[in-house]
């Protein structure tokens, strides 16, 4: 998929664990893993908002468009 999820990079920058982020934003670790792998079908604005708030970043820091 041309949309790449850079959640791993942001988590490493913030020195935060996946489980910690999942607890902070109120989604399951399974869903976070799916999101990290870019296997999700869609992301809700509410989830994106929660991630940006928790990681103190912009949506562009998490989602990136790459031409395949």
């Amino acid at each position, binding site marked *: 998929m041309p949309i790449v999820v850079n959640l791993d990079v942001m988590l490493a920058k913030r020195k935060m664990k996946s489980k910690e982020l999942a607890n902070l934003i109120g989604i399951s670790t*399974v869903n976070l893993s*799916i999101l990290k792998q870019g296997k999700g079908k869609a992301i*809700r604005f509410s*989830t994106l908002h929660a991630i940006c708030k928790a990681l103190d970043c912009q949506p562009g820091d998490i989602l990136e468009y790459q031409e395949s």
Partner: protein
Amino acid sequence: MKFSEMRVLKHILVLFFLICLIPMMVYYFEFSGLDKISWILAGLLIIQFSFRKRLAFKPFYTSKLNIFTSKYSKEKTFDLQKDLLFDKVLEIVNEKRNYHLLDSDKETFRILIGTSLTAKSISENLYLDLVEIRGKTKIHFTSVAFQLYSWGKNEDNFTEFINNVEESFVI
């Protein structure tokens, strides 16, 4: 004729057959014989329900020789690892009211789900076998209704379950 219309026609024909069957049984077996048949059928139903909550009895319920259950099998592949999809399915089962987790085995990646009572049937067993092939996971789905005819409930179970899984990928 559309597929859905054909399905309705099939259900009507089965209903008509069942309605015709009762007077025929009364005529041939008399009321005393019917009484015995009812007891035998009730006994068989109790046996069918006694072991339904265990994965180990899957071969018994899905066997072609078990004429007291109606079965439906189909496969669907998802672009996800087996262990992740396994956890995802368990999560869906916990979230949805009409599903009950009856049994699961993470070593063999098999799940047994029970469905709730509906007008069409008492309950069904949904057997899921997860098989990973080159990074993708194939779910082998089998719906078993504890009646001779499922009234399309088995097919509906597959569609509903797959829709639930697909919907859960919106995070």
